């Protein structure tokens, strides 16, 4: 799956759409950023409720294609700006981490 297809596939909204369109290598679900740093796959997607710019720093370290923010958590402007600077897609969904992970697992699970 390409980054550009992710929001449509999830029925979610892309709130930061300036990114280089890449093939998504996998996904990881966690609300502990240190855990995401340790385990998220490079070029993958992070599924989380941590809607602040520190999450973008994790995305940058791991070269993430996209961050999916669940449960419609409000995304502050500085997070959107940081994601734009880093070229990481930000996707907002009303669904839970469980639901998003379940949808993506058949496509991205190995």
């Amino acid at each position, binding site marked *: 799956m390409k980054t550009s297809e992710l929001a449509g596939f999830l029925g979610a909204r892309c709130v930061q759409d300036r990114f280089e369109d890449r093939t998504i290598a996998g996904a990881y679900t966690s609300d502990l950023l*240190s*855990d995401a740093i340790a385990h998220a796959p490079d070029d993958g997607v992070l599924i989380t409720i941590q809607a*602040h710019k520190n999450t973008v720093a994790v995305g940058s*370290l791991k070269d993430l294609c996209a961050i999916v923010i669940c449960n419609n958590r409000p995304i502050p402007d500085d997070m959107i700006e940081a994601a734009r600077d880093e070229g990481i897609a930000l996707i907002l969904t009303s669904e839970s981490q469980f639901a998003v992970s379940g949808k993506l697992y058949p496509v991205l699970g190995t």
Partner: protein
Amino acid sequence: MIVRADFHLHSCLSPCGDLSMSPKTIARTLAERDVHIAALTDHNSALNCPAFDAACREFDITALFGIEAQGQEECHILCLFAEPEPALELGKELYDLMPPVMNVPEKMGDQVYVDENEDIAGEVDKYLITSAEIGMEDLSRRVLELGGLVIPAHVDRPSFSLTSQLGFIPDGPWDALEVVRMPDRSQYVNVLDTRNYPLITSSDAHFVEHIGRRAFDLDIGDEPLCRKDGRADLKTIRAALLRRPR
């Protein structure tokens, strides 16, 4: 007697800290801004504390040597000591407990420490803003064993804080809680329950212009701020923290 205090400062050792934040620049700026006692608290490392010690002597600042530690719960906790050695010891232990995630300086920032002449003495290879494999209780216990103060950082902030990670302020051996803003008790809604712990504010400076912002008043009464050997007297500081608003 009331002294101005800033207990939360990052140097060039923190990847998010500006390279211009050398211990000497920090001490000089603290002196210019009338802060009398200050703690260096880099993320998970104390390797700039020896240089901070020398710099604070030069500018007549009473120094505390600290670490902003991050353990399993991902809450940031200020661990403060009167001497550099226990801070360095804690830093060594945290280093061993951190995952082998290496820093990428071009992306995350440099993690350099300096000697007292401001020459770069070394660089930390592991990325410092990860979680050491230690729970908050064990971490606090270790800090107390090493003779330090335990102050959860920015507890009212939506990331890396007790409230963001746990949703509330748990019981703990907290000498105080650091808040970004003192709670407005005239507001009866949405005020964080700080459980009657003493509250302080500090700069959390990563850039020179932020040094000393939100510095707080520490009322030490008639007690000496320093011990005979010139180190901060933590007994005085503990007692003074008890006089802070709650």
